[in-house]
């Protein structure tokens, strides 16, 4: 029920944006992410962007795991 998927912001028009995931384009509400820009990835839950995905911190997670031997 708290499902949210990462989508890429393609265009912004006011409180809404067009976002893409897996070839699917969808209009999302970005009112809760006022700083979001074209090219950003955000988590989308029931038609709303709820949080931006931080690319640097995403890399950190993966490199930490890659370091495990």
């Amino acid at each position: 029920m708290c499902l949210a998927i990462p989508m890429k912001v393609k265009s912004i028009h006011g409180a809404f944006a067009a976002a893409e995931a897996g070839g699917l384009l969808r209009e999302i509400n970005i009112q809760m992410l006022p700083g979001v820009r074209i090219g950003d990835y955000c988590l989308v839950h029931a038609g709303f962007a709820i949080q931006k995905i931080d690319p640097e911190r995403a890399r950190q997670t993966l490199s930490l795991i890659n370091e495990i031997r």
Partner: protein
Amino acid sequence: MKYVDEYRSRSRAKKLSAQIKKIMPPREIKFMEVCGTHTQGFYRFGIDKLLPGGLKLISGPGCPVCVSTGGYIDRAIKLAGYKDTIIATFGDMLRVPGGKLDLERQRQAGRRIEVVYSPLDALGLARKNPAKKVIFLAVGFETTAPLIASSIISAKKEKLKNMFFLASLKRIAPAMRYLLKDKRQNIEGFLCPGHVSSITGTRPYEFIPRQYRIACCVAGFEPVDILEGLYFLLRQVVKNRPIVDNQYIRAVNRCGNTYALKLMQQVFCISSADWRGLGKIPESGFRIKKEFRDFDAEKIFSLRQQASGSRQQASCKCSDVLKGLLSPDKCNLFKKACTPEHPVGPCMISAEGACNVYYKYKK
């Protein structure tokens, strides 16, 4: 898909699995995954097979559909019975049992009940059907609550006179506090919900290690996320140093999404709430504020708050399952009287209910 595929990598999952096995002490350790989406991911991806035998994961109360009370469903059914209403709802709610009936049967009987993907679709229905009263079943945790707040504000701005919200919105951290007060509970760590936390931040869990000395880790929902989250939890247990760890740093910080939190504060006040199987829990819910009462179905349709009686059979053990005291397969009804086709209790109905997940994925 970016931010999905790399967290489903088999080699990364194997590394984490090996790491977990390496530090696992030779005794049984129980963690609770609070969120139903974690429960589903855990079995869907076969993560249970990657863990040492002694590490047990117990499902918690984190499925908003499962914890909606029979009384709430009955109020929705009553509203659906009025001639000029359209009920808009997330699909999972249709089969949740009320006192005698469920919404699915009402729909088959010709009541107008529409499944929507977003509360915004409900606003669309209200615009398209000005002669009807549209009532959205606003069910969810903190992930969903800000969306509802935003939609209520939109409805007010647009002066939509025919849009209403029947709210059953819940807060996770007070439910965790309630579980911890049960002396039968012997969990040593909480895998905390990633998407709730993307809104609330990690701060609401800080009382758990402080007051109860129980480990916490917020985790994402892909297999690598879940495994790393479990590794972080285990590391805390081994060192006997409980804190609130954050595995899902790409989407979660300590303070949450401040814009979303502001929307919630604007529209809701914190109240006690009824949870199916758990009862009334203080400060565990959101109520629509007076300023927005024109959109509060509870006020406008003067629905009487009834006791949350449901037709749940006495032998149904959903309440113990929700508390993490009983594994779904230990319930006498499981796979016999209770299946996804003919569910008895709410944990079998929701795709994220512990019983439903066990039925589908666990051998």
